[in-house]
């Protein structure tokens, strides 16, 4: 076991982590721990753009953006945070441009903008061009630009280090962060990083679903590390299903395709979104579009022999426009489906895409141990966190924005904190939990296999807690997850070595997914209403009287060692916008 000491440690090197690292490295001795090489992070898969009311191509302002974000989140958004997001968006985009990001340009040479779902002029009058973009590879450009600037700033990376435990020490009744424990993939060695400040920026949890746009590595490691140490997780029942994943594969096809004029059609060729969202049509918010697609499929208007998908039709758009604005997604259609989007519509279905919930933070990125108490020295930003700017449903282009605005804020806040704070003394045996986790899995002679349990988990999640949920389906998921968690105790790995043991790491990742899936299902069961991405067929309406509040899920451990989930609730911050019925 090695012990390292840094002022600031950042966990994860996607957009939020690297944006934080650029700020933290300027202000404090900083290490970035990442389970991948930085440029492998899933920020790179984001396509369509980053929202900011630059008003480069038409009238716009950040207040409209704030309103759209709150409405898009079905009023579960904390409005103070949404205001910061929209206001700071403008500088966030300009900062990236100054760092070198190659945005598409207008004829005047300014940053070009296009339409995106849920973003509107004057509180819902009509779609507005707010998304700043670089073809359909905006996330790739952001990830590359941030990595380039990390190289420029001399950011210190520990690549292929898996953070598996968050060290929490209680001093005078206050929970404080003492550092993290990481597993080095190349050697199997365990490292303790003592740090005055820790920033989680480790991304989402999408891999507990089967059809998902998420990378194999999105297994909620940061959420799980904090949750296991008694910190709450907020709004985990809210998961976004992106309307346009490649049929059966789940690979993302950007909403920018509809922003450029693409149309969703059922088997009769009908533009069905006109029925469900007369104003915004195909550019309604993602939860609305995904439900509409499944309604078409359920009512027998789906395409194909099994009627299990619909079409994304780009055939009426000029090939030059597709080549210039949507080169990657058209290539995906050619590579993975063998079809030509110039002439043929693309079969799509909703795909599990984004966790709205996560580790609760305030607007400075400080992690909360309950509704109001800050954990000194602990920060989170990006998909791993819940500020909450996305509420019950995130708007497209607001996640690339979130990672830049709140990644920057968390990086600055963490470094400023570590500049004036002392180290918290490490617990007596800081690597104990990780050592026993690793040894137990490596030495286990159990008969259960990781791949089997993961497959069953993904199948039950897709079947029971996806776009449509009922008490019965959620209960089925809760029971199945409990069974899988029990079987997981008997799991073993074949690779017993120390060197690049990805077999072992997949087993640990599965443990994280199981814990988080349970939190999601239990949180969903208790929310007896429909709001944003959480749709209960048995409670089809939003219930502001009983459920205008954030879910806070805590892990409780009984004296006999058995764990359970305790749910609590936190008020939503409302400033200027009163909840209204959401129509697109």
């Amino acid at each position, binding site marked *: 076991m090695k012990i390292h000491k840094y002022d600031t440690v950042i966990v994860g090197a996607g957009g939020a982590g690297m944006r934080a690292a650029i700020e933290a490295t300027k202000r404090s001795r900083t290490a970035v721990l990442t389970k991948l090489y930085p440029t492998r992070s899933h920020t790179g898969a984001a396509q369509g753009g980053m929202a900011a009311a630059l008003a480069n191509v038409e009238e716009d302002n950040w207040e409209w953006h704030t309103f759209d974000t709150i409405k898009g989140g079905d009023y579960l958004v904390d409005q103070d945070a949404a205001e910061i997001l929209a206001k700071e968006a403008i500088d966030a985009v300009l900062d990236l441009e100054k760092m070198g990001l190659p945005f598409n340009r207008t004829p005047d040479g300014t940053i070009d903008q296009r339409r995106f779902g849920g973003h509107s002029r004057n509180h819902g009058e009509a779609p507005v061009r707010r998304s700043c973009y670089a073809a359909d590879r905006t996330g790739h450009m952001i990830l590359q630009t941030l990595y380039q600037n990390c190289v420029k700033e001399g950011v210190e990376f520990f690549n292929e280090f898996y953070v598996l435990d968050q060290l929490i020490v209680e001093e005078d009744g206050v929970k404080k962060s003492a550092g993290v424990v990481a597993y080095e993939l190349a050697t199997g060695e365990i490292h303790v990083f003592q740090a005055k400040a820790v920033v989680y920026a480790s991304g989402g949890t999408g891999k507990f679903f089967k059809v998902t746009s998420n990378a194999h590595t999105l297994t909620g490691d940061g959420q799980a590390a904090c949750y296991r140490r008694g910190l709450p997780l907020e709004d985990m029942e809210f998961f976004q299903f992106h309307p346009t994943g490649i049929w059966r594969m789940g690979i993302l096809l950007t909403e920018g395709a509809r922003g450029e004029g693409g149309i969703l059609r059922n088997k009769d060729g009908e533009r069905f979104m006109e029925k469900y969202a007369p104003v915004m049509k195909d550019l309604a918010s993602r939860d609305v579009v995904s439900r509409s697609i499944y309604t078409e499929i359920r009512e027998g208007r789906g395409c194909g*022999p099994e009627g299990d998908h619909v079409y994304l039709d780009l055939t009426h758009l000029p090939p030059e426009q597709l080549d210039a604005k949507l080169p990657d997604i058209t290539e995906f259609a050619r590579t993975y489906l063998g079809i030509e989007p110039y002439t043929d519509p693309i079969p799509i279905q909703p795909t599990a895409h984004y966790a709205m919930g996560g580790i609760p933070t305030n607007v400075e990125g400080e992690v909360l141990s309950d509704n109001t108490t800050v954990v000194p020295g602990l920060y989170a930003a990006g998909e791993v966190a819940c500020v909450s700017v996305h509420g019950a449903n995130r708007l497209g282009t607001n996640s690339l924005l979130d990672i830049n605005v709140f990644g920057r804020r968390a990086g600055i806040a963490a470094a400023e904190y570590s500049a004036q704070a002392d180290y918290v003394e490490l617990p007596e045996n800081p690597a104990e939990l990780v050592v026993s986790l690793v040894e137990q899995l490596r030495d286990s002679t159990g008969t259960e296999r990781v791949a089997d349990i993961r497959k069953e988990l993904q199948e039950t999640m897709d079947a029971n807690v996806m776009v449509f949920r009922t008490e019965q389906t959620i209960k089925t998921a809760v029971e199945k997850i409990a069974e899988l968690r029990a079987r997981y105790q008997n799991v073993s790995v074949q*690779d017993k*070595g120390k060197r690049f043991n990805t077999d072992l790491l997949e087993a640990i990742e599965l443990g994280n997914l199981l814990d988080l899936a349970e939190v999601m299902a239990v949180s969903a069961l208790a929310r007896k209403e429909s709001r944003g991405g959480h749709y209960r067929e048995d409670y089809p309406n939003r219930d502001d009287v009983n459920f205008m509040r954030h879910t806070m899920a805590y892990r409780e451990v009984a004296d006999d060692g058995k764990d359970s989930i305790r749910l609590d609730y936190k008020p939503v911050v409302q400033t200027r916008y009163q909840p209204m019925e959401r129509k697109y």
Partner: protein
Amino acid sequence: MATPTMDKVEAEAAASDHLITVTFRIRRFNPEVSADAVWEDFQLEIDPKERVLDGLHKIKWDLDGTLTFRRSCAHGICGSDAMRINGKNRLACKTLIKDINPAKPITVEPIKGLTVLKDLVVDMDPFFQAYRDVMPFLVTSGNEPTRERLQSAEDRERFDDTTKCILCAACTSSCPVFWNDGQYFGPAAIVNAHRFIFDSRDEAGEQRLEILNDKDGVWRCRTTFNCTDACPRGIEVTKAIQEVKRALITRRF
């Protein structure tokens, strides 16, 4: 809305439960077990429309958990899974089984020119070091503007091709010069230098050109076009290298 091709896709998909048997012939190496690398064959049932990466996962998940490779996004964006498949550098997640003659054994080896650490995992540090050495970031002087820097669509287009790079190392590890001499910067580093040299906003083009004028720089390129063939993003890598060479001669970019 046209549908004829769709009927074909759906007809194929309907028949998609038809699986074929393929042999994966994989170069295995684990210094914890043996100092020598060996070939190992695995037979599996797979839908030919699946990816080579899906085949590797089937092996790892169902047959042999010790098989080790890097991967993440699984659709050609993250650059983790460049490997040598049937003798050619490709991304395992962008290569469909049906496109590489599944009737014969499919050979899978680590990319060449970088030290193999275990199975298909190579040491990427020298690759990223060469990247860092070409100053891969925008350099400007003077006061920053309050708004964005202006750039015409034409100036933006000038370096578009090289912005697509995902640093997968497929190009660099396909280059015979790089195989023989690991000191050569290699195509990927030059591509990333090109991305800034030809960006109208940047002011460090001369410095980057001097770095690449070194004995291990662009002049080592023998224009074999392996890099262009290997690039999973379709970047015209050799052309970019030639443009850097020309800029070195004319000092115009």
